[in-house]
């Protein structure tokens, strides 16, 4: 007995020594000063990384950018493991804003406040912790309303004109439904994906509520509306979306739904799927998302929506020279040159001036109407995830609220009360 317990103590000491010395630094690329490693995911269907790498190499003689591919769904887990083992990339791509505070607190990210960003770039504030920037954005998706012009025509309903509030949206859905019935079209007016952001993102942004404040009464009207739409058969019920594993690409691309609130990343996917034949060939457009009230509707106002940027941070363990090179990469990725190149493959860059917007709509297969251009370029985009250490925990609690309410297993009032109680009890 005694021997075993001494052995255990010995092992514990050895273990601590082993893990203790591991935190200290190093990156995957090691000492080669002219090679920059950049993390990415799904490289074959996410061409933006190669595009930025090529562009940067063209500007910097003798520099090689090496892309490190990670699994898209487990990106954060794998990156965390590599960073913990001192094998992280030089440039750490920030796939989701909510994980930035963890990397920052863990001392994995360099202060990149001295990287100069072009005037008017969106999303930069999302990466600031106490006024210091730990990453810079290169793309900034925001949520818009995709609609199928062909289905609207068949139902004899007017296209969205930018003046919609959520009530107008619900009315249009009703009109589409009866139009489809009359015309014998098998389609649902709305497809809303299962994510919590499809309700909560709009609610927080448009009511000007703070996710971190711990008060979630603002969600009520937004959930009530969705529940009513489900009830009326205006949109595919949440339970069916889950049980049948519906994909938003399939639902919209195969014309099962006429309208779909979605992030602007969908444009590139839809264009390429229509080209390859994976999606049907039909006319579509982009409109601003419906608004809370009249004050932000119409093309002379600025609609309010939400979205998070995607950006790059610099690994804190790199050498000074390497850090300099990495910061130049960040600067390039945020520049107008890069923005135009990104727009040229259907990506929504963080910098959206007229030249960039023009490049975006020059892509073959994108809609050409004025409202689509307005919807892409004009909006006040509030962050979905504020850069705060509690964001991830709160979002998890609100996701439980989302599944409980939309599945119909809990009513909205008690779900909100539960969530508020849990945030007060478990967070902070």
């Amino acid at each position, binding site marked *: 007995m005694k021997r075993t317990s001494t052995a255990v103590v010995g092992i514990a000491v050895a273990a601590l020594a082993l893990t203790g010395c591991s935190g200290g630094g190093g990156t995957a690329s090691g000492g080669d000063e002219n090679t920059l490693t950049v993390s990415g995911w799904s490289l074959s269907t996410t061409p933006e990384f190669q595009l930025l790498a090529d562009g940067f190499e063209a500007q910097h003689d003798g520099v090689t950018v090496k892309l490190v591919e990670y699994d898209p769904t487990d990106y954060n887990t794998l990156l965390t493991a590599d960073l913990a*083992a001192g094998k992280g990339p030089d440039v750490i791509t920030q796939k989701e804003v909510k994980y930035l505070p963890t990397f920052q607190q863990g001392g994995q990210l360099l202060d990149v406040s001295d990287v100069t960003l072009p005037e008017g770039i969106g999303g930069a504030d999302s990466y600031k912790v106490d006024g210091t920037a730990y990453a810079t954005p290169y793309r900034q998706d925001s949520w818009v309303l995709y609609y199928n012009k062909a289905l609207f025509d068949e139902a004899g309903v007017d296209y969205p004109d930018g003046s919609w509030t959520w009530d107008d949206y619900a009315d249009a859905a009703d009109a589409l439904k009866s139009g489809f019935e009359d015309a014998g079209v098998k389609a649902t007016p709305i497809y809303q994906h299962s994510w919590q952001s499809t309700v909560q993102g709009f609610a927080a942004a448009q009511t000007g509520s703070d996710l971190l404040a711990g008060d979630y009464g603002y969600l009520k009207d937004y959930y009530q509306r969705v529940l009513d739409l489900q009830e009326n058969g205006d949109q595919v019920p949440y339970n069916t979306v889950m049980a049948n594993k519906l994909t938003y*690409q399939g639902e919209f691309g195969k014309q099962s739904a006429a309208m779909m609130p979605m992030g602007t990343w969908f444009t590139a996917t839809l264009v390429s799927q229509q080209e390859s034949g994976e999606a049907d060939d039909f006319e579509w457009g982009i409109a601003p998302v419906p608004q809370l009230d009249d004050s932000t509707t119409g093309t002379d106002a600025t609609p309010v929506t939400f979205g998070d940027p995607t950006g790059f941070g610099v690994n804190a363990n790199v050498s000074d020279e390497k850090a300099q090179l990495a910061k130049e990469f960040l600067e390039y990725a945020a520049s107008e040159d890069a923005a135009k190149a990104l727009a040229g493959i259907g990506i929504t860059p963080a910098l959206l001036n007229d030249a960039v917007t023009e490049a975006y709509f020059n892509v073959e297969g994108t809609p050409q109407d004025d409202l689509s251009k307005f919807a892409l370029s004009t909006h006040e985009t509030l962050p979905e995830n504020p850069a705060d250490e509690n964001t991830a925990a709160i979002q998890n609690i609100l996701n439980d609220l989302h599944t409980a309410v939309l599945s119909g297993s809990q009513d909205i009032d008690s779900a909100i009360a539960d969530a508020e109680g849990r945030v007060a009890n478990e967070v902070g």
Partner: protein
Amino acid sequence: MSETKMLITPPSPRKRAAGGQATGAGTPQRKIGRALLYVLLIAAAAALLLPFFWMVMSSLKDANSVFSVPIHWIPEIFVWDNYVEIWQKSDILVWIRNTVVVSVGVTFLQVTTGSFAAYGFSRIRFRGRDALFLLYVATIAVPWQSYMIPQFIMLSNAGLANTLWSILLLQAFGAFGVFLMKQYYETIPEELSEAARLDGLSEYGIWARIMVPLSIPAIASLALLTFVNTWNDFLGPLIYLRDPSLWTMQLGLNNFVSSLYNVDYGVLFAGLVISVVPIAIIFLLGQRYFVEGIATSGMKG
């Protein structure tokens, strides 16, 4: 010695027992009972195979008809292209090779070191043995995801991350095999070992000549379960294997499917069917060892 003899002689033919019953119960009744049993078994088998059947059928559908409302069990048009696509566009042969290497290696190490250690735990008395054994079993209770990162850091520092060795080492020395074999050894009568000791066999000889042959059913089930677990493991390879030339079947399939614009379940299921077939064959060929071990092994002399 009577117990020993009983264990190592082949079981008496069932006919005798069945015949004995038949005289009492009457043949027609027994026939009906047997027919009912088959009906029951066939119904159960259908329920058990239903999802696999659905998977096979879905692997022959195009992406958009996999999830239809209501469920279509049989595809309207059989799409064999899914198999062609995965065979031609992916490195499935590389994945299969890696998976076979890892699964065979892990199974071999788990069975040999596990049954060897189990003999020490079940047949040799020494100080601290029970405490040590409890320690083994207790670690099973710690979920892998909680020590995954410390383990990754260690193997990474040892230069083993991103090699097939990492997966081999990770799975090979679990407490599961030791525990399973120890429990089985305890059912083998001590008298057998005593007799062998008197005949001058060393402990190692007893393990090799008596315990191993007598525990074929346990070894077969341990080998099979270890093989299947390693074959189907996803999280381990996901964390450790980054280089596409090292990917296993599950990891490769996942990557192949997620590199499409959206998950093509038809192609995914084609890959999954391919990955299930080898295990099914191994099971079908090997299942008799679960029940025939003792009857066929026996002891020489």
